[in-house]
């Protein structure tokens, strides 16, 4: 019994590995840029850039502490992205960056403020070197209370994944 079971397991693993390799190697397959896990319909949800671009796009010009001049940031609203992922009963959004920076964003920020998940700066895609490809941006210039550390630290760049809690 035992040798037979072991054989079958090995065979399955080989097939799965082959599949994964095929997926990873597939040049035509779109590369996901954002993974959404937690309280979503079917976790984890993988979103590629095209999916984000298909959502209604918002665009605004604002200053940030990290640039000397104001820039125009474009991208879908955070709440639209969450809706697309099928997030339900979100209280806190835990966002993680490429450098493993983590921050909690209250879900009501997404609901009440026009927070966007920017993928373009001044009409161009944002490279990693420029804190891309995804950059959560609050409309800082629209309200003075937004220009505080609380909101600056929530404005996460090089966004990699989101966990809905």
């Amino acid at each position, binding site marked *: 019994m035992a040798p037979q079971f072991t054989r079958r397991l090995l065979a399955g693993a080989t097939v799965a590995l082959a599949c994964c390799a095929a997926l990873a190697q597939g040049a035509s397959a779109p590369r996901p840029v954002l993974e959404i896990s937690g309280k979503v319909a079917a976790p984890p949800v993988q979103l590629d850039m095209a999916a984000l671009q298909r959502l209604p796009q918002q665009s605004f010009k604002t200053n940030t*502490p990290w640039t000397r001049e104001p820039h125009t940031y474009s991208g879908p609203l955070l709440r639209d992205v969450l809706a697309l992922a099928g997030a339900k009963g979100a209280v806190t959004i835990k966002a993680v960056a490429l450098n493993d920076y983590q921050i909690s964003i209250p879900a009501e920020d997404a609901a009440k403020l026009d927070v966007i998940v920017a993928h373009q700066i001044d009409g161009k895609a944002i490279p*990693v070197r420029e804190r891309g490809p995804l950059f959560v941006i609050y409309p800082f210039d629209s309200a003075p209370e937004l220009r505080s550390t609380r909101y600056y630290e929530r404005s996460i*760049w090089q966004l990699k994944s989101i966990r809905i809690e």
Partner: protein
Amino acid sequence: MKGLAGRTRLLVFLAMLSMLAVLGAAVMSVVKVREGPFADPRQVNWRDSVSGLVFGFEREYSRFRGELAAAARGNGPVDLRDAQMRYEILASRIQLLESTGSLDPLRNISEYLTLVARLRELTTTADALFAQPAPQRAKVRALLALTDESTSDVQSFTRAATVATAYLVEQQFGALRQQASVIGALAALQLLLAAAAGYLVWTQRRQEAAAREQLETLADELRTATHAADAANRTKSQFLANMSHELRTPFQGVTGMLQLLEQTQPTAAQQDLIRTARESADHLLTLLNDVLDVSAIEAGRVVLEEQPLNLHRLCRDVRQLMRGQAFARGLRLELAVSSSVPKWVTGDATRIKQVLFNLLSNAIKFTPSGVITLTVQKAHGVVTFQVTDTGIGMDEATLARLFRRFEMGDETLSRRFGDAGLGLEISRSLARMMGGNLVAQSTLGKGSIFTFTANLLRCQAPVEAGAANALAALPEHALDVLVADDHPINRKYLALVLASMGHRYVLCEDGLQAVEHARTGQFDVVLMDIHMPGLDGLQATEAIRALDGPAARLPILVLTADVMPATRERATAAGVTACLHKPVQGPQLAEALNAAVNGPDAPPRPGALSSRFNALSKELPAQALAGPVDMFFGDESRTLADLHAALDAGEPRRIALAAHKLQGSAACWASGAWPSWRPTSKKAKARGPTRPARRIRRAGCWTTRWPKRAPPCRRPDQAPKRCPREQACAANKLLDGARHRLVHRRHALQRVARQRGVVHVQRHVHPLAGAGAQTHGDRAEDLQRLHGRVFLRVVATGLAQVGKLAGHGQRAAQADHLRQRMGLHHAQLFGRHGHLHRGGGIGAGAALEHR
């Protein structure tokens, strides 16, 4: 002084402290303004993120080095995908280092400059390496070596940045500490200021308390002094009151006896002496009254009456009374009352007269020749009386001293004219009490002008003023008077005065007797002295008020020399009807008796009139009535006709008015204002008809111009008796009758007089007629005059009752009764047979009155 200097120093110190505080606050404001940018939250955030940026950079640097080291190991094809990702992330951190404003303060330190140079080299090499599609492992190793070389620079920068940040924070803390110390200093300054202010308030409070205490002590002293002064003043007033009492009792004796002395047919020389004595007594009385007035005014006890008064009449009266004095000194006294002066005003007639008398008598005194003018005007609600004379005048100094007490204008004048000098002061006080003033202007040798102003308000004429005055002036009919006085002179005086008025009296010596008499006797009024041994006047009054039956309601007049209001109050409380001041003068007493008996509170006296009428007609010689009665009914003013007309019309109000008018006329005749008439004198016969007879004849002639019977009224809707012609007819009839009967009655009167004889008349008449009759009893002429007057008094009283009945709202149905009564009176006067007395009509009249 020391305290004051200390306070000044303290104030200066406080001012300096305040200046300092203001300066400090200003400095703080400037600092705040300059610190403004630091306070910007964004700036603070940038500073706060310095360490995050630096450490984030160092961490990424290490991770990149790790990945690169992993890629450099091994022998297979070089896979730089992970290393490239880490490199991209590191590149983003480098970019942040170079571009973020937060790091600006660090850009000048050598570690930063060294690091930036190193990183340039590194990125150039790395970019070239990652750009190659198939990089050689050796190149990767070279990059790793470069990276390792730079690690020390990265660590140095991190340390330097940490130190710099700490230094920055330290700086900020320093600024904060500085601010805190400034704020602390300012707070301390404010505390100091508050303490100083508190100290100031406290010292001020203490000073105020001290001042208040001083003031209270002073006020206490003042109060004590005032009380002492008040007490002294009260003592003085009491002394004056007592003195007035003590003075007036003997004084009454003096005046009374002088009056009696005048009636004893003295010789011319004696008469002169008596007159002088009376004048002296009068003057003394004036002085006494002045002194009492002053003390009463001073004590605030003078209360002005507010009664309607006829100002025009008042002025005429004053002039009439002063004219004699003026004339005696060869002066003219003129009166000019402006038309602007209202006829009726409210005020105190007695006091206004007092002031005017004072001013006019002064003017007369000090004017050797010329004119004295009393001008009366009204402007702005103030009545101005101006007394102008052409006398000796005064200089400035005299004028200045004029109103001061006990100071005459001129001391030599004082001796010459004799006066206490109180008159002007009293007058001025009275004027001020009337809301006006009294001022004087004068030119030496040219004369003086005294201006007396009073705030007298215009008022409506009293509705029945004429009637009321007539009533007041009504001479009393014979009354039964109970007199109680312990002083024999006073008793004698009062007895004489009452007798001269035709009243009956009973004398007694003290209160107990008075109460006993009041209980058992039948009196109309009681006259009582207050000060009596045993039961005094007030106690006796209380005892009488406590009696059973009508005696308890007897009008009681008390006599007192005490003018103090307290006495009056006690008297009122005891139930006294009125107070009379000693010495009592005849007219005053008459008025008071009249008011007491006819006043609204007087008890009804049914039948009194009729019984007296009956008695009178039995006793009187018919002759006695002829003169005054004829005069009365022969009056061409047609008052009687008016009364008849009113009776016919049955209008109570008109009846009352007419009755009052007629009564006034009767009173006038009765009071002796009629000319002498001597019915039996041969001289008189030789002179022809006397004046009243002439008047009647003239009236008769005049009336013959009218038809005997007036034609009926042209307007039937008009009340027939209101037609003047009808009235004239009534008057005609009356006058015709009077004239006709006059002739008859003269004979009858003469006959009766002869039959009865003078002596007989005298005996019977005595109780009614009084002293005058007694003294001159043998003079029939005077007796007759007297009897006539008494009779007319009775008529007047009857008329007054008619008026009262009508005035008291008796309906028109009563008119017949009234007319009947009037008719009966006529029957008494003009009996069918020309006889006056013993008529059955009188009895009927009495019966009617009882109804």
